[in-house]
């Protein structure tokens, strides 16, 4: 992945407007958080290959961390702390936020075809 280029990401988000797309949204601080630090909490969530249609999309932020909001007819999808992006297999946009050790903290991915299992 490479650091987010806001204009290019915006163009890709716009491409999927009003199409049925598959979404992967995720946040995690690792399964060992409270094992390594008794005072820490294990938190995380992921949603994979849920189909949605959004009618509006925007990437916002400056410097090295960005937020993306997707507006649907009935609600929103939102991710914060995104730092890097890539296009996977020519057609899927992957956005992720990594910490300084390169660990994934948050991800938002959009594709017209399902992600692998």
């Amino acid at each position: 992945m490479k650091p987010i280029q806001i204009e290019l990401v915006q163009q890709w988000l716009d491409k999927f407007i009003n199409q049925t797309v598959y979404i992967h949204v995720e946040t995690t601080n690792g399964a060992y958080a409270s094992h390594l630090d008794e005072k820490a909490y294990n938190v995380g969530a992921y949603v994979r290959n849920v189909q949605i249609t959004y009618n509006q999309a925007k990437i916002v932020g400056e410097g090295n961390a960005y937020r993306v909001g997707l507006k649907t007819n009935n609600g929103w999808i939102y991710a914060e702390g995104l730092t890097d992006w890539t296009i996977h297999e020519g057609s899927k946009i992957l956005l992720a936020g990594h910490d300084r050790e390169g660990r994934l903290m948050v991800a938002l991915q959009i594709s017209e075809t399902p992600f692998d299992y």
Partner: protein
Amino acid sequence: MEKHVVVILPHPDDESFGSAGSIAEFRSQGIPVTYLCGTLGEMGRNMGNPPFANRETLPEIRKQELKKACDVLDMNLQMLGYRDKTIEFEDRTEVANHLQHILEEIKPSLVITHYPGYAVHPDHNALGAAAIQAVEQMEEDHRPVVWAQAFARGFQEKLGDPDVINDVEAYFETKMDAILCHQSQAGGIIGDLKDYKALGADVLQEAKTRFGKETFYIWKFQ
């Protein structure tokens, strides 16, 4: 002497961190070892440091790392095809039946797995429980011995002293080489030990103390 050892753990790298020394020792005695690896660690958050993997490329990268580690440890590999972080939500008996079927084909004399409830990661606890259920479902005189590995905080106070304490310092280099196959998981401990061959004597000794012993509880079936 064991006839065949089957290792049942959920993630690529669990075998190297937890049991590589014992595996290397079994192999040095000519005992076949088969790893039933539950998932491909698809949801791992380590992507390499600096990152070279992403959420979609990680499974294939970890599969290759797993194969390399199994080559280093000279053991057979069967991938079970579950998805990382979901094993506890699968039907326990279905997973147990799946494992039982494989165990009845391999007919191991020993199974190594995680100690349910004392292995920190939910996948560890769930696959350990399913493995033990699988063995329990087998006819008593066909059951392999089960070694269960615990490492949750305070496990020893709750479970007592481990039954098996394997001093595997003689296989330290093989164990390190196996761990280092899992390059995407670099960072943290692997990052610190990447150049273990060049480490000072003190640090090397510390690593040997940390990785030089592998402990297990012998599961007591009712």
